[in-house]
Structure formats: structure tokens, C-alpha cells
């Protein structure tokens, strides 16, 4: 199954997504992969990565760092059943848009990420994708930033359209947005 998990900064979306993936992978007896799209630039980034690593410790995730071309992570996976947590669309979009000397157009970025994620969907038993909710502050930023936000909006919409579930995490509480089918995985907490 494919689940899209949304939430603000510090909402607890990552912890929820990890828990969800563990439940899904446990039921299907598949290997758990954590695809980290964040690029570390400074000490703050290093600390964030450490915090996330610490929380995942002991949960049996195999971590793959994949800042761009997310589908390439498949080359680093073993054969057999896979459950994948992709963290997160905000970083992946920024990396695809701003890597290199020129800023890539939003349409190209959107197409490339959606292609990558759909390839992951095809090759995994379960895929949990984490994304941010960065659309509600009413600020009109410069053109580049608005393009970045627009691309994220488009990617979120397309992923939501093909997801089995869309969940928004608010203060650590998962709020169903769509597609909650209790029959699919009865004991996943909602």
C-alpha cells in the first residue's frame, strides 16, 4: 500500500511514518528501507540526522542516502520484498530544483520526482512518503520560492491521488485526510 503522510515542522510526522512502516513491513515480512533525501550542509543538519538516526535505531531500517534521482535507491536494495519510507518530498524537491548551476523548471522537477516515486511504488510492497504542509502562511515569496512551493503542491496532489491513504499529522495525532480503509490493515493505529 502507498501512504502519504503530511504535517508541519515538528508535527511528529516522521515518528508516525516510521511506526506505520514498521507495522506494514512486519505484517508483510519485508525488508525496511529508509530513503533519506536530506543533504547535510551544516551542524544543524548533522544534528537533525543524528536525532532521526537515534529514533530509528533498533527498528531494523536499512538507510540509503539519496538526495536526487530517488529511484536510483532501488539499485542499493536487496532482492525480495521491500517496504520503503521516503523522507521527504520537501528536501527531494529542493535538491532536484537547486542542484547544479542552474535552477531547474518546476515542471521538470515535478515530472522527475513523480516518475521516481512511481517506480518505487511499482517495486515495493509498501511505500510511505513524508511531505510537508508549507502552503498556508500567505506569504508571496520570490518567483523561485513560489515555483518550489508550487512544485511541492503539485507533487503532493498527484501522490495523494494515487495513495491508498493520506494522513495529516497534527501535534503527533494522525488525522485521516482520505482513504482510510480499516479493512486494508486492521491494526494500524489511526
Amino acid at each position, binding site marked *: 500500500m502507498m501512504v502519504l503522510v503530511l504535517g508541519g515542522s515538528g508535527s511528529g510526522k516522521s515518528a508516525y511514518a516510521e511506526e506505520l512502516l514498521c507495522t506494514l513491513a512486519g505484517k508483510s515480512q519485508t525488508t525496511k528501507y529508509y530513503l533519506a533525501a536530506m543533504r547535510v550542509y551544516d551542524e544543524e543538519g548533522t544534528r537533525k540526522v543524528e536525532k532521526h538516526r537515534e529514533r530509528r535505531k533498533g527498528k531494523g531500517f536499512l538507510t540509503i542516502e539519496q538526495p536526487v534521482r530517488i529511484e536510483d535507491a532501488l539499485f542499493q536494495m536487496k532482492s525480495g520484498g521491500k517496504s520503503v519510507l521516503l523522507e521527504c518530498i520537501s528536501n527531494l524537491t529542493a535538491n532536484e530544483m537547486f542542484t547544479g548551476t542552474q535552477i531547474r523548471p518546476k515542471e521538470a522537477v515535478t515530472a522527475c520526482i513523480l516518475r521516481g516515486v512511481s517506480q518505487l511504488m511499482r517495486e515495493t510492497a509498501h511505500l510511505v512518503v513524508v511531505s510537508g504542509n508549507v*502552503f498556508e*502562511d*500567505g506569504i508571496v515569496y520570490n518567483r523561485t520560492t513560489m515555483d518550489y512551493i*508550487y512544485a511541492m503542491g503539485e507533487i503532493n496532489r498527484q501522490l*495523494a491521488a494515487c495513495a491508498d491513504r493520506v494522513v495529516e499529522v497534527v501535534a503527533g495525532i494522525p488525522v485521516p485526510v482520505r482513504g482510510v480503509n480499516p479493512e486494508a490493515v486492521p491494526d494500524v493505529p489511526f
Partner: protein
Amino acid sequence: MKLMIGGYAQGKLSYVLLKYQLSEDAVWDSVLPEETELRRKQRMHCVEHGVLPDQTAASVEPIVVNHFHQWVRRRLSEGECPEKDVQSFLNRCENCIIICDEIGNGIVPVDAFEREYRERTGRILIRLAQEAEEVERVICGIGQRIK
């Protein structure tokens, strides 16, 4: 009147057009149309589609006001009172769908006008939501009925 609210780039307009089977013809962008404008557009629609004008059509086919927040912002920057305009608009055009961005979920801005804009828009939305027969929040192109 129906109210649609949601973040930037969440697919609110597409959601409305699809859900209510409306064409782009029904959409007014960041403006609350006057009675005369509504009639003119209706006449143009009739000419383009080769149909006879129907005096009641304007009240049957809902009109869509998109980017409502931009209209509020413009009225405030002109030193006008959007609250009054909204009320008179609703009195003449009850059958409408108002689409507005959620603009209040960020840091409170330092700039006084930006603060005023968010506060007044928020207060107007509360009143619209009270009067609306339906309120939906759109996230990732998905509508959540909240009233």
C-alpha cells in the same frame, strides 16, 4: 453560498470546477462582480454558445470567486472596507462559491499591513463560514467537509 479554503497550490479551483461541473466561464478572479458585470458575462456566454438569454440563469448557475484573499488584500490597500462589500455581494449573489487561500498558518508578520491583511481576512472567513451552507477545506486536491 459555499466556502472553499486551503493552502496555496492545493488544487482548490480544479476541485470546485470538477465537483460542481462548472466551466472556466463561471470563474471571477480576485473580484466580486457587480450586477451589471454578471449580466454582461451572461449575455456574452449566450452569444458564444448560441443560446437564448434566460433572465433566471444568473441565479441558477453558481458563480465562482477565486483568489478571494487577493481581493481582500487589494481592498485593504485601497483603504476600503471589504466587510461591507462582501455583505452587499452576498445580498445580490447568494448562489456562489468563494475560494480563498489559507493565509494564517505562519509567523505573525512584522509589517503592520501584512498583519492587518491576515487578521481581517481571517475574520471575514469566519463570518462567511457562519453564513455558508457548506465549508470545505482542500488539501492535496482532496476536499474535507468541515461544515
